[in-house]
């Protein structure tokens, strides 16, 4: 039998349905791959091989009894370790939660289980989602499958690397300001941040509640639509989740962009450091025009303020959301002579430096005397950014931008490099501030074969257009599928 690694969910589905392969074999093959490549990649914090095999066998039994085992039945996936899994360690890559076993599943985990998808483990991230490289993980950094010296991006670098390294077929992660799209771009996979509210956040360990969304990493657009079919929709446990009337997302996978108006925000192009990325973007635009779309340069005038606005809102919400980690109900406790000293010791030893920095910044900007000067200003700028998008997207069906200013950088490069971080955030965080959907799509490679990525931004609940444009680029170019990162014989 030829290797199943690298195949997409929809390809594997066909084989599983025809019973040419079993889910157990499929999971085994991926577990073997994980065993081989983890020493190098370090994508996983926890591998749940036994549970996965057990679940795969149950799926196989169902299938052999002729039952319909679900739309993603038997397909191996990975979850970012900030998604709660009942009885299975969920750490958010923090010392604070090193031994935390939630007594509940995240809503998306339940939905995937119902669809029969098989989780093989929990992936590394920057602690609590704060970072752009996985270097802020309390455990270890993950390595980019396309180059050992390069970061996989972050926060959800583990999940992106796991998909790129063919350790799993797809993965779930979260996106607060680019945590999903940026690593997708660095690792040459597709990353989707849904419209705010489209996917339940219940059970996602909160980073910044008004920005966080759960999304997915896949290898192609069809898989993206298939995963969306499972995870989208209103959940009674998340007041900010809404029902999405799209129905079956695969129906938007049409190779037709005729008449679509696509804007290219000029402010985004200014952030790019690598001329190849600009060239790829122009190449994509030219292809779309050739296919009948109209591409025009547009302006989002408050783009330059987005990163600062984001920094303040992020920190404020982080300081609030992470206040609960105090060593009482769960998590790390470091004994102290009294309550306050226990609090301080537990939190100081449980959190890493970046987390502490964000908590202090957030506490500061929410404190009386600073609130109006910082936090309130940021909320107002957020309005301007939202309005920029509303205005442009009333005339254009979607926007085409670079996903990242560079291809994956090396370890250590982002540390104390605020301008690089600002550039990264500037390209991705506006979508979170405005709550609109954003898709990062691999498009070409930079030096040493590192993947580059483009980003599509749509109207709120306008995922349909992103799928359509992404699919058209996938069908009509050979740039959306970088060659496999890891050779089969590694």
């Amino acid at each position, binding site marked *: 039998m030829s290797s199943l690694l690298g195949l997409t969910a929809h390809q594997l589905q066909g084989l599983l349905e025809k019973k040419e392969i079993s889910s157990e074999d499929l999971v085994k093959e991926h577990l073997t791959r994980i065993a081989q490549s983890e020493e190098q990649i370090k994508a996983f914090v926890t591998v749940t091989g036994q549970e996965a095999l057990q679940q795969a066998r149950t799926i196989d039994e169902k299938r052999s009894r002729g039952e319909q085992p679900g739309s993603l039945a038997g397909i191996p996936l990975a979850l970012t370790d900030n998604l709660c899994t009942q009885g299975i360690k969920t750490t958010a890559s923090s010392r604070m939660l090193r031994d935390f076993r939630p007594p509940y599943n995240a809503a998306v985990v339940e939905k995937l289980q119902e669809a029969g998808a098989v989780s093989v483990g929990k992936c590394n991230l920057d602690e609590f989602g704060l970072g752009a490289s996985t270097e802020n993980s309390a455990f270890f950094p993950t390595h980019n499958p396309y180059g050992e010296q390069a970061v996989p991006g972050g926060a959800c670098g583990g999940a992106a690397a796991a998909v790129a390294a063919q350790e799993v077929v797809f993965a779930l992660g979260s996106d607060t300001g680019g945590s999903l799209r940026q690593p997708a771009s660095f690792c040459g996979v597709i990353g989707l941040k849904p419209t705010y509210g489209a996917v339940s*956040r219940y*059970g996602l360990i*909160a980073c910044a509640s008004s920005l966080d969304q759960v999304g997915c990493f896949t290898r192609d657009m069809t898989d993206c639509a298939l995963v969306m079919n499972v995870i989208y929709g209103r959940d009674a446990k*998340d007041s*900010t989740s809404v029902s999405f009337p799209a129905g079956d997302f695969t129906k938007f996978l049409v190779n037709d962009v005729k008449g679509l108006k696509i804007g290219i925000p000029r402010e985004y192009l200014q952030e790019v450091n690598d001329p190849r990325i600009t060239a790829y973007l122009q190449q994509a635009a030219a292809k779309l025009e050739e296919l009948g779309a109209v591409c025009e340069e547009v302006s989002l005038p408050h783009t330059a303020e987005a990163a600062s606005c984001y920094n303040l809102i992020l920190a404020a919400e982080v300081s*609030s959301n992470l206040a609960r980690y105090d060593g009482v109900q*769960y998590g790390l406790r470091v004994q102290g002579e009294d*309550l306050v000293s226990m609090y301080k010791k537990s939190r100081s030893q449980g959190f890493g430096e970046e987390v502490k920095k964000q908590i202090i910044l957030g506490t500061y900007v929410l404190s009386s005397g600073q609130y109006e000067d910082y936090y309130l200003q940021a909320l107002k700028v957020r309005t301007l950014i939202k309005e920029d998008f509303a205005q442009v997207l009333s005339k254009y069906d979607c926007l085409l931008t670079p996903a990242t200013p560079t291809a994956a950088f090396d370890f250590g490069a982002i540390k104390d490099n605020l301008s690089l971080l600002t550039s990264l955030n500037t390209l991705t965080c506006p979508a979170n501030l405005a709550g609109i959907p954003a898709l990062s799509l691999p498009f070409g490679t930079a030096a040493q074969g590192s993947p580059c990525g483009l980003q599509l931004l749509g109207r709120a609940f306008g995922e349909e257009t992103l799928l359509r444009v992404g699919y058209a680029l996938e069908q009509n170019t050979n740039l959306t599928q970088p060659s496999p990162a890891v050779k089969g014989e590694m």
Partner: protein
Amino acid sequence: MSTEYEVVIGLEVHAELKTKTKIFCSCPTEFGGEENTHVCPGCLGFPGTLPIMNKKAVEYAVRAGLALNCEIQEYSKFDRKHYFYPDLPTAYQISQFEFPICKAGYVEIAVNGKKKKIRLNRIHLEEDAGKLLHSGNSITSSQYSLADYNRSGMGLIELVSEPDLSSAEEARTYLEKLRAVLEYTGVSDVKMEQGSLRCDANISLRPVGSSKLGTKTEIKNMNSYRSLQRALEYEIERQREVLEEGGTIIQETRGWDEEKGITSSMRSKEEADDYRYFSDPDLPPIVLEPAWVEEIRASLPELPDAKKDRLVMELGLSEYDADIITGSRALADFFDKTVTLFNEPKTVANWVMGEYLRLLNAEGTEVQESKVSPEKMAALLKSQATGKISGKMAKAVFEEMFMTGKDPEKIIKEKGLVQISDTDALGEIVEKVLAANPQSVADYQAGKEKALGFLVGQVMKETKGQANPGVVNGLLKQKLTD
């Protein structure tokens, strides 16, 4: 020359909402229960959990607001109030800071016959914290504490008054009035002993005539109406003494010590709390359409003030009786229902104010738990009114009915308490008694009125007390003058 001081008090009252479930999750609000069994990941503050607003809690807050003459706010939202304490699992309390659900209400109280309007600044929704059990006798002497989160996340309304109260008695009366309104509207159990009604007071003194408020202290730990009044009386005197000696009041939180009868400093405001409020992004705002508010208004029951007016104006009760009867909804409902079954309001009021309240107090029972139903009460009063039993018997029957819950008819029968009013049956006994007591007959006829009393007594004795004394009296007089 000594300065005259004026007392300025404002109350912050917390009432636990009588919803079935907590305000942001589906755990029960039931009192008691084994520690940490009425909890879910949400009210334990576990990572990734999210609050969901209980619709009933919103409706209850609006009910309270309408009953207290508030302006119901079309737009309200939730904010996070941050502080670290082990009874607060997320280290922030979800509350309403910027846009509360109700604003600007008032209640009327009467103290020493004088009516006064007490304004409410606001009513807002928030969640309760868990409970801490301390290892020692007090928090200061404890080596450790234990946290139980069964109460964590229960729905509360906080009712904040304006500083319109000017004595401890007014404060107490105001709190009792709030209690009655919240009980009538059914939004809270309002039991201070169980903590479903809690009260903190802000209090300051200022020279009469001064328009500037004095420095206030906040008083906590008052667990009954009586302790509220005592604590405030104490604090007024304490502040007066400090001021008279030329001292200054320190702005601080003071705890009431019930046993010692004093307030003492808990912490000073210098460690100023900065709660770092901001809108909770997890909870969309509440928008109350006028139609919804009207629907809630239409469902309000008759409120204490209206009920009292009706009892006085229409049923002819005294102000005093009406005040006591309407002081609790349960008692007022008992009264109303009994009157519909036995339409003599004053008689019913006399029984309610007399025997019924006496036994309730003596037994420490609540109206809701009492075994006496309005039906039984009315049946008893009918028996008395028709002469079936005497007033004295009725009291005895009531007492047994109160203790056992038996039907009055059954008690009357079991005790053989039926009053004999039948002139034929009594006539025979009267004849017998007259024949057996010729001396008394002679005495009466000789003008000794007292002899009649003796003869009545003999008839009662013969009938084991069941004879209707009025009828016996009449029969005897008739026979003796024949």
